[in-house]
């Protein structure tokens, strides 16, 4: 579910539609946008405080075969929330064997690549200190 929440806009839908036709479902809770209060700790480790909110979209649905899927994803993205809940439900069916390689694995790779690209740029700005050698020997 974390993977689905962090995927870029429209990406999960593209991967799902490439892998299979979407099954029918009924809403348990239609997509709605709200907020989550993000907390942090004083000094990084101390008592918690409220840092500020972030937008979150959530929904829940039932497949025709009865499996329930939930989604809580960052941002105001109702279509992405719908697809995330569908995938969450499908992962409890036989479709899981198909979706693991066709959807979850590529998502994981893409997110890992995006992260390591950024980390590599950060690493290039790491300071290498050197000591000036004085001209006396």
């Amino acid at each position, binding site marked *: 579910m974390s993977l689905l929440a962090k995927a870029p806009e429209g990406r999960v839908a593209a991967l799902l539609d490439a892998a299979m036709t979407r099954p029918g479902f009924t809403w348990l809770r239609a997509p709605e946008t709200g907020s989550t*209060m993000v907390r942090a700790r004083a000094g990084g480790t101390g*008592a918690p405080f*409220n840092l500020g909110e*972030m937008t979150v979209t959530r929904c829940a649905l039932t497949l025709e075969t009865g499996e329930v899927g939930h989604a809580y*994803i960052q941002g105001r993205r109702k279509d992405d929330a719908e697809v995330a809940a569908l995938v969450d439900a499908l992962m409890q069916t036989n479709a899981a064997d198909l979706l693991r390689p066709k959807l979850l694995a590529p998502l994981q790779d893409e997110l890992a690549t995006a992260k390591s690209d950024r980390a*590599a*740029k950060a690493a290039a700005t790491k300071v290498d200190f050197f000591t000036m050698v004085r001209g006396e020997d």
Partner: protein
Amino acid sequence: MYVAVKGGERAIENAHAWLAEERRGDTDIAELSIAQIREQLSLAVNRVMAEGSLFDPDLAALAIKQARGDLIEAIFLIRAYRTTLPRFGTSTPVDTGAMACDRRISATFKDLPGGQVLGPTFDYTHRLLDFKLAADGEVPEAPARDAVPGDVPHVTDFLNREGLIEEAPHDDTPPPDLTREPLEMPADRALRLQALTRADEGFTLGLAYSTQRGYARNHAFVGELRIGSVPVEMEIPELGFAIEVGEVVLTECETVNQFKGSKTEPPQFTRGYGLVFGQTERKAISMALVDRALRWEELGEDNVGAPAQDAEFVLYHADNIQATGFLEHIKLPHYVDFQSELELVRKLRREAGADQVQEAAE
């Protein structure tokens, strides 16, 4: 007598229409898209998210466009929107120690695990206008180097090991929330940190600067400054466990400050803390300095009467939406209020014989 006055609807409508036209500017110039603002004015977007107290880069970019680049007006729009959102819950406290750092520097230790990572910084630029940007915005790709995976521990952790710095002991007291309960004094540190992280950058910077210049000086070193993204985890009631719902970019500043020690505490360094949404390092450093100044009481220091030590003064004046709301309301019609003042001044002048003096002069 109270006289209800009506009117001005057409003038207001026309003013709004002209505002929309002025916002758009010369139509021969291409219109700005939300994505352009989000990607190319990202530090303005970050400020609007931090002080609007809502992490959503697209919304902040829209607010900047709508506000014609007036960031306080944009923050106002975000704050107003925020109140319309149902609150789904609260996250578990984010772990800044696990941050994927774009930038991480320490002014106190040269060689530290994880190293000094400069990141995309204005520091060391010459602050000369770059006329190339006026002609052509294309840039070569930034160099990359294999990142060494590994933890990037907080600098205060090393000092903690020697007992040289006060600890920030783990605690799970639910914090107060000033978006739900009005801010009241005395404010504990959790409430102060919430107020400071959304406080006006300019006001916070001014107060922090005042502590450096000697008003409640506490001689701060930037022990560590880090910028990067952290996952946000939230307990989902339907599932009964916590999942990651997304990521936020944060700037964290920990200051290391002098402290003489007290009757109960041996001499050791003390800490100030700043944590702000987005890449917002001027604000995070300012927040850490002001946080430290406000801690005088719990650290047993003297109140020297400095503005930055006065929690009531700082917290009640740090919110730019409250401030601008009250400040700007005085330009709205006060005709009846002013009429009564006018009557009063005329009456006082009559009583003081000012009218007669004027007659005599004539």
